[in-house]
């Protein structure tokens, strides 16, 4: 992995047309200003992961699978 050190106001370029600039640093938070072509999707990683997880969660669960789950849940009936 490439690690680069930058100061506030400095940028890095990804290819020719994506610029990521350090806009502000305060405590643990860093604000980035991203300049990218419209067709490039920019997402916080957690949101990207949520996106993938949602796709995986869109499962078609037959009723018997749900009933099995219910049974397991009842066996585990907590506390």
């Amino acid at each position: 992995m490439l690690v680069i050190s930058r100061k506030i106001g400095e940028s890095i370029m990804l290819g020719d047309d994506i610029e990521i600039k350090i806009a502000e640093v305060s405590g643990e938070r860093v604000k980035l200003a991203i300049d990218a072509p419209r067709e490039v999707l920019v997402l916080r990683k957690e949101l990207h992961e949520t996106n993938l997880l949602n796709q995986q969660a869109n499962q078609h669960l037959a009723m018997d699978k749900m009933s099995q789950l219910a049974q397991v849940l009842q066996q585990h009936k907590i506390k």
Partner: protein
Amino acid sequence: MQIKTADFGEITIDEASIINFPEGIPAFEECHEYVLINIIEEIPYLYYMQGIGENAPCFAVIDPYYFVASYVPHLSPADVKNLQCSGMEELRFLAIAIIDQDLEKSVMNLKSPLVICPETRKAKQIVLENDDYPLRYPLFVPNGKEE
């Protein structure tokens, strides 16, 4: 009103029970309306969340408090502004589950819960500020090591 479900044919729902996600949910932005269906009466914390429309998505969702009583989601008022809820304390939280072939490996997403305002019936999936809630929280502790 009649709707088509992915898994048990057509069912009748009360229109007043429709939940509206004005922005859809990540990966399914085009579907805005869902209904929560409690399938098994004895398990009141487990629902199907069925989207309304052709080829609408369908999820198993869970009330996270049944598993994690201490769940305290941190949200900013800006996150929930569009839900037009009268107060943050009114909000209700549900977690999307991924039911594994091996049921005991099933997980739920505590990092980005579905946040629902019961009065306006508007909802949104929100990535929380909390650092300690995983995207894949196991529903079951392996080997029955539950406290």
